[in-house]
């Protein structure tokens, strides 16, 4: 199981109604159904992922979330989750606003572009970073809006978004004590729990 799912699980109340944006193959929802008695849906656009969700018994709705979530009423869900997808959105700020409108609280994870490896790559090689963790070149990447932890937290301040909790991990979603010494430099993924 992906380690971040274990971390996210801790922030989801038992019996919650959950919406997972860009839910992939439904692993997180499947996990939350089995371990937290959660219900809800995943939104996804990948055909193989949709079939995988259905096969798992995860409710999945084919939807391009960039087209908006207007059909969903305010506060429909206890928790709205988006893991590792905010950086591929055309307007991450609007998505976060929408998530907070339809969910009482939200969980967001994204790769940290402020990590020392990305900084070093750009500083010393003068090229956009390409690594196992960020395996795309600049012209074919789905990631249109990279940010650092600092950038995201600044957005939260500007929009009056309250950060309830934050966990910073490495690219294997493992806690390392030293990451907390300088998270924006040493952390690769942050998991934020936010609310309005």
């Amino acid at each position: 199981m992906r380690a971040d799912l274990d971390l996210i699980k801790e922030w989801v109340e038992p019996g919650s109604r959950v919406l997972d944006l860009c839910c992939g193959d439904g692993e997180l929802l499947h996990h939350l159904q089995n371990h937290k008695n959660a219900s809800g849906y995943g939104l996804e656009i990948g055909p193989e992922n949709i079939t995988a969700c259905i096969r798992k018994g995860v409710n999945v709705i084919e939807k391009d979330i960039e087209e908006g979530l207007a059909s969903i009423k305010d506060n429909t869900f206890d928790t709205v989750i988006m893991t590792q997808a905010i950086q591929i959105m055309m307007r991450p700020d609007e998505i976060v606003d929408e998530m907070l409108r339809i969910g009482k609280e939200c969980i967001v994870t994204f790769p940290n572009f402020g990590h020392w490896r990305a900084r070093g790559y750009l500083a010393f090689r003068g090229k956009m970073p390409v690594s196992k963790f960020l395996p795309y070149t600049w012209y074919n990447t789905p990631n249109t809006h990279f940010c650092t932890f600092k950038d995201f937290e600044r957005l939260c301040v500007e929009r009056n978004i309250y950060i309830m909790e934050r966990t910073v991990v490495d690219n294997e979603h493992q806690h390392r004590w030293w990451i907390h010494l300088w998270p924006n430099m040493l952390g690769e993924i942050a998991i934020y729990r936010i609310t309005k």
Partner: protein
Amino acid sequence: MPAVIPEDSVGIVEPQKIEFNQPLQLQCGRVLNNYHLMVETYGELNANRSNAILICHALSGNHHVAGYHSADDKKPGWWDSAIGPGKAIDTNKFFVIGLNNLGGCHGSSGPNQINPETGKPFGPDFPIVTVNDWVESQARLADYFGIDQFAAIIGGSLGGMQALQWSINYPDRLRHCMVIAAAPKLSAQNIAFNEVARQAISQDSQFYNGHYYEQDEVPRVGLMLARMLGHITYLSDDGMRSKFGRELRAGQISYDFTPQFEVESYLRYQGERFSTTFDANTYLLMTKALDYFDPAAATEGDLPAILQQARAKFMVISFTTDWRFSPERSREIVDALVEADKQVSYAEIEAAHGHDAFLIPIPRYLDVFSAYMQRVEADTQALSDKENH
């Protein structure tokens, strides 16, 4: 029929006529004292009668869903691509029922059947039937087979509307509801198409106000026009372009009114064939049932409110080029189910075939379908395990 029946076919099948003598109160106010339904079944009903699947047919459909009626049959049943041993709806695991709805023209009580009270065909005197009436008659069909709860009720187009109505009228009698290429109610444009089709039929000089049986006539031209119009709306612009383009039959334009483009002769052929196999009065009835379908009318248009009653798990499927019942219409159903906090999955299948795509074995469609049916099977198995303990 192919020279050898494929292994994944249900093979040669035989319809059965089932009589019902308990009066059926119809939504229009009239009562059918006796009626019969033409039915086909495939697979075996299991010991606790938990593996039954009801297939609801669309506008011009009938009970012959899969397999062949005889060795001379050129075509199998209308959904043979989805039903059979090892297919998406696996007849090794499920007991599948297909029926011809009330008002149909393929053996169930309908306009072309003899009215027992007069000894003549019902004709236009056959009452207007609605999706609600069909659900009621299908529930009695379930009783006949001793089925308390269907593993799934599945339908495309008008069939999907029946499945949706089932989930509202009999929430405890189905575990899964599959609504394919359907809508929560018809749009004005949909109703307009239906009205043109009805006018084509009723204005035909051979229609005789629906009493054409006694004249030994058929309003063939009207039926043909109705079907041609319908057919255009079931295909997509792209689909027609790739199938026919502006191909000419004789290779050159002849500057007269004979059919010259391939698409013209195709439509005429389809229309003429249809006019020999389908009953005009039934076409009028079925299009009316479509027009009247509106489950949310009971809650003043509030679809989520009426769907609160449902207990089934839903699978909704639409097709990108379907403009008769576009993906937006399916999304209305999905949004309402989400608002009503129901279990629902939704897939929008990329397809060039328009509304007709729901009958075509598109690989992704079959993948999604099979994946969902595995879920239906798992739930059926879990129920059996529970009951056996």
